């Protein structure tokens, strides 16, 4: 596909606008408080735009489209559960209300108040390891989309994504959360328009080849390509199934209350009520986060099924961008690419800032005997943003993982979510919880998923069993560890 002058104009205008706005916000950064949590001055609608932009990355679009390609629209059930989890947490204030009221800058900081400085450090390490390894594949998957949707030469991928990361690093390192909020806002607008336009074009195209009938025929085995899962019913045995859906609900509640990039928006909010409103009003957005790219993936499956199968070199992951590259009319591709660049940039900037803040706040600060000057703290956090950018570049883009990246992510994700979620729930709502219980929860939460993943390779243990076990072991560690210490030595609940 060739980009027209109009396409280039849209892309360059978008990039120039983002950079100008991001760099301009630098002037308002006075210290780490502004850099990390925007001086806690964020209001609800800006919070919605920022949360939505950060949590919908190009990597999200790629894997949700892959779910749509492999499981039809039923794959989007995870989005419905995610929306339910966010609404529930926003409605009740579960965890996020006491967390915001505690006035901390990161989740591990709360653990020092509640347990001990060592628990804070260890939890910070878990958060950073899980988060960075999770982020490691963002650039490559984002680049894959650009390669297959625009038809650009595959060897350009590394250079294009390196330049993109360089732009994100520049404004994130200079303006911190203030730049991230303003650029997230612009990216939310561009991304929203791009997603709506793409979905309408896919729907118009899908009418032509009868999407529903083709998916049903593929499920029945009478189309050009067999669909192995029921395309519409998520409870069907061939699809996700009850056990997996229940596990996803628990996982989404844990992610909504524990995932540091989400929580950083809670901590930047003006108050707990603003954070809760932000959650409630953003909740339905997460249905579309899974469903709309899932529709693109399902449409790609139906289209290629009618063509007799996937072209050579195309996989379930790259089928959707290749399909979009075929159906998008000239003139729209610039808008869609700008939207996808927006999705990638908003997620990268939010994640870079979040993990840098945790490293500074929870891994370095507790080890310092003499506190740094305000300028020194700011410089250190900026250097950490740059350092994470360099790590991301080499780990995720230039370095090919020797094994399965998803196995790696499953282990690290479960370690983080299971253990930190348990610490948060116990720390905020169980007065008897203590540091020994916190250590036990962190260690058992880590041992569980690693063991199950290793055994699971031999005995094919379902992911929901492995996932529930990680949460169960972390909870067991917290209960047994806490009860092994006399009640009189326990610190009061943080809230």
């Amino acid at each position: 596909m060739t980009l027209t002058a109009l396409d280039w104009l849209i892309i360059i205008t978008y990039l120039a606008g983002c950079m100008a706005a991001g760099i301009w916000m630098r002037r308002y950064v006075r210290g780490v408080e502004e850099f990390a949590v925007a001086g806690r001055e964020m209001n609800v609608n800006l919070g919605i735009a920022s949360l939505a932009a950060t949590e919908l990355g190009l990597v999200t679009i790629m894997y949700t489209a892959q779910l749509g390609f492999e499981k039809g629209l039923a794959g989007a059930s995870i989005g419905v559960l995610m929306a339910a989890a966010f609404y529930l947490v926003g409605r009740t204030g579960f965890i996020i209300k006491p967390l915001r009221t505690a006035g901390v800058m990161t989740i591990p900081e709360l653990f020092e108040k509640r347990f001990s400085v060592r628990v804070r450090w260890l939890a910070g390490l878990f958060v950073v390891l899980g988060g960075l390894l999770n982020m490691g594949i963002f650039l490559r998957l984002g680049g894959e989309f650009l390669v297959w949707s625009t038809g650009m030469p595959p060897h350009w991928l590394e250079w294009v994504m390196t330049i993109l990361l360089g732009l994100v690093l520049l404004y994130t390192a200079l303006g911190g959360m203030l730049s991230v909020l303003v650029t997230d806002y612009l990216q939310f607008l561009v991304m929203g328009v791009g997603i709506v336009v793409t979905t309408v074009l896919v729907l118009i195209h899908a009418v032509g080849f009868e999407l529903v009938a083709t998916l049903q025929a593929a499920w029945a085995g009478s189309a050009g390509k067999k669909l192995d899962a029921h395309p519409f019913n998520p409870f069907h045995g061939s699809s996700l199934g009850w056990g997996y859906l229940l596990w996803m609900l628990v996982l989404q509640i844990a992610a909504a209350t524990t995932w540091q990039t989400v929580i950083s928006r809670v901590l930047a909010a003006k108050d707990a009520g603003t954070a809760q409103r932000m959650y409630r009003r953003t909740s339905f957005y997460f249905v579309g986060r899974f469903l709309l790219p899932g529709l693109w993936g399902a449409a790609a499956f139906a289209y290629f099924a009618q063509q007799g199968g996937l072209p050579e070199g195309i996989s379930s992951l790259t089928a959707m961008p290749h399909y979009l590259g075929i159906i998008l009319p000239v003139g729209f591709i610039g808008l869609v690419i700008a939207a996808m660049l927006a999705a990638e940039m908003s997620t990268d900037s939010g994640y870079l800032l979040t993990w840098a803040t945790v490293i500074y706040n929870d891994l370095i600060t507790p080890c310092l005997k003499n506190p740094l000057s305000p300028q020194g703290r700011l410089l250190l956090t900026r250097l950490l943003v740059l350092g994470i950018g360099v790590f991301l570049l080499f780990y995720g883009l230039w370095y090919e993982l020797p094994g399965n990246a998803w196995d790696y992510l499953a282990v690290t994700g479960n370690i983080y979510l299971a253990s930190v979620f348990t610490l948060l729930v116990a720390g905020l709502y169980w007065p008897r919880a203590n540091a020994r219980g916190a250590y036990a929860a962190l260690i058992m939460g880590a041992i569980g998923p690693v063991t199950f993943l290793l055994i699971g390779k031999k005995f094919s243990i379902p992911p929901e069993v492995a996932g529930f076990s990680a949460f169960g072991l972390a909870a067991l560690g917290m209960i047994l560890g806490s009860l092994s210490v006399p009640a009189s030595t326990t610190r009061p609940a943080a809230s």
Partner: protein
Amino acid sequence: MKDPFVLFWAALILGSVAWYGFLVFHVGFKAGCDIRDLIRTLRDQQAGDKKS
């Protein structure tokens, strides 16, 4: 189209498209106002710092 699941997903797709379209305009306008207020507050704080 008699399958209730097909109707369910069709309704959610249309709802999502409508919601995304609405958010772009509604949140777009309101969040723009939030940014203006945020910058005003930060500017006032900076002016206060310089005075003190």
